[in-house]
């Protein structure tokens, strides 16, 4: 066990070491860095973290992170309220937003179905999704989930739940990546791309 020069110092190391991917050595470096900063800088740092936890909420509609009851995306009147994109977590919202190609709303599931990890449909934001679909405002649901077995399981489950409600269900395309060479694409992806080929008129960049 490493001994530290002070109890306060040790407590700080312990707190940093709780962060994901941070071991005791990295935590020590961070604490030493903090000690070197101005008091005001560190004050600002800790206030930011405190505010983060105290003031960030999850949007009542889509479960995205938000400072208000309804997030800025759901509150945006220019967005297409008939279009709903299903994602696993907040990181996926950020990724899709950065493409600037999507103008509909989101629904964050908070995970994907994997009984091995103790995650079943009840652990996810699925009931609120079904309620939304039942209300009749949504015309199309876009499934943007991981292309893993667990992602596919979740999509299938949601399809079974949403299809009877009369919403159209689409999934994001899977295929050869843009700028990618055919010979380097993995066999399964390439095989699917051939099977699910698209009419050239539709593939011309608009």
């Amino acid at each position: 066990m490493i001994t530290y020069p002070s109890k306060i110092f040790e407590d700080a190391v312990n707190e940093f070491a709780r962060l994901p991917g941070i071991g005791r050595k990295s935590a020590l470096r961070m604490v030493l860095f903090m000690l070197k900063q101005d008091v005001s800088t560190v004050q600002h740092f800790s206030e930011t973290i405190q505010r983060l936890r105290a003031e960030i909420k999850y949007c009542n509609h889509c479960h995205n992170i938000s400072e208000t009851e309804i997030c800025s995306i759901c509150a945006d009147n220019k967005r297409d309220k008939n279009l709903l994109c299903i994602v696993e977590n907040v990181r996926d919202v950020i990724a899709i937003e950065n493409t600037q190609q999507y103008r509909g709303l989101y629904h964050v599931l908070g995970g994907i179905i994997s009984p091995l990890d103790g995650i079943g449909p009840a652990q996810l934001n699925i009931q609120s999704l079904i309620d939304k679909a039942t209300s009749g405002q949504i015309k199309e649901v876009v499934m943007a989930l991981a292309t893993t077995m667990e992602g596919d399981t979740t999509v299938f489950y949601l399809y079974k739940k949403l299809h009877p409600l009369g919403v159209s269900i689409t999934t994001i395309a899977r295929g050869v990546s843009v700028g990618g060479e055919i010979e380097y694409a993995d066999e399964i992806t390439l095989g699917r791309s051939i099977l699910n080929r698209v009419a050239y008129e539709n593939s011309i960049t608009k």
Partner: protein
Amino acid sequence: MLYLAHLSLLHFKNYDHLQINLHSGVNVFTGPNGLGKTNLMDAIHYLCMCKSFLSTDSANIKRGAPAAMIQGNFLQDETAFEVLCTLRKDQKKVVKLNSEEYTKLADHVGRFPIVIIAPQDQMLIYEGSDVRRRFIDSLLSQTDRVYLEKLMLYNRILQQRNALLKTGQTAYELYEFYDKQLVDAGQHIYDKRKSFFLMFKPLFLQHFLSITQTVESADIQYQTQLDSNDMKTLLAQNFERDLRSAFTNAGIHKDDILFTINEFPVKRFASQGQQKSITIALKLAQFTYISSHNKPLLILDDIYDKLDEHRLTHLMQLMQNNSFGQVFITDTHPNRVANIFNKYNTPIQSFAIDKLKS
């Protein structure tokens, strides 16, 4: 023809370090027990299969050393290949082919095929059905990549389905999805195993007959629930039972191989000698099966003292007919194997293990 021309070890098991040039034909290693004959065979196994046939990776590093290294130079039709396998304590093992590291070890397995006949083969008869399934799976995976992918998918879904059964939830949509995937992968695996047995059975029977030279009729049967019902029906029929027992009762994960002699199951009724004949025939059939793709190296570890006249004659005939490629033999007796090969006028390269190590 494929053979291992040179082997070098560093801190592997009880070896400090070792450099040895090998013969492309028959190599015989003699010496008392406990000196490391089998460990040397295990090193060769590592080069081909990326793992030990005896123990876990960490147990193979010499005590006190930080790492073990096994390096081999293969020659195949004048082309040279260098395989390097490094084991470090608490770290992932690294396997390199011509200095290039594999990202997936599975890509290496099968590149330099190997068959090993050893006393542990008896496990194939005694142990549970998983050992016998692994025997088929490792054979099929080496020659069929799609099989391996389907098998991995099947096992993954099976785990998820069993986990779901344990939660007691009745999310029928999830079962529907898992079952669909299990049906697709399971049916594929069943078809492959079925056609594998069609090819494998005659090979096995032929070797068994040559070994025993008797009127005893042996048989090898692929036992599977899928013969009577397809995977879809099985899952549907067993669903209530699955829910009660909290695991999946039917499927290709329940497959087995049944060995019989004169229609009696070998597991319960056969003598030690009959069981030995079965396992040797099984391994020789494995050798013949893989040979149609690429002739494997053959290890005969510690079995020469246990061979009776018929088995010995059959083995030696195979040697003389050039059925084998490179062969490695270990024996405790210094001259026994050499004398046998002399009798058959087959040249060998002998190594005394205590001299190798000094």
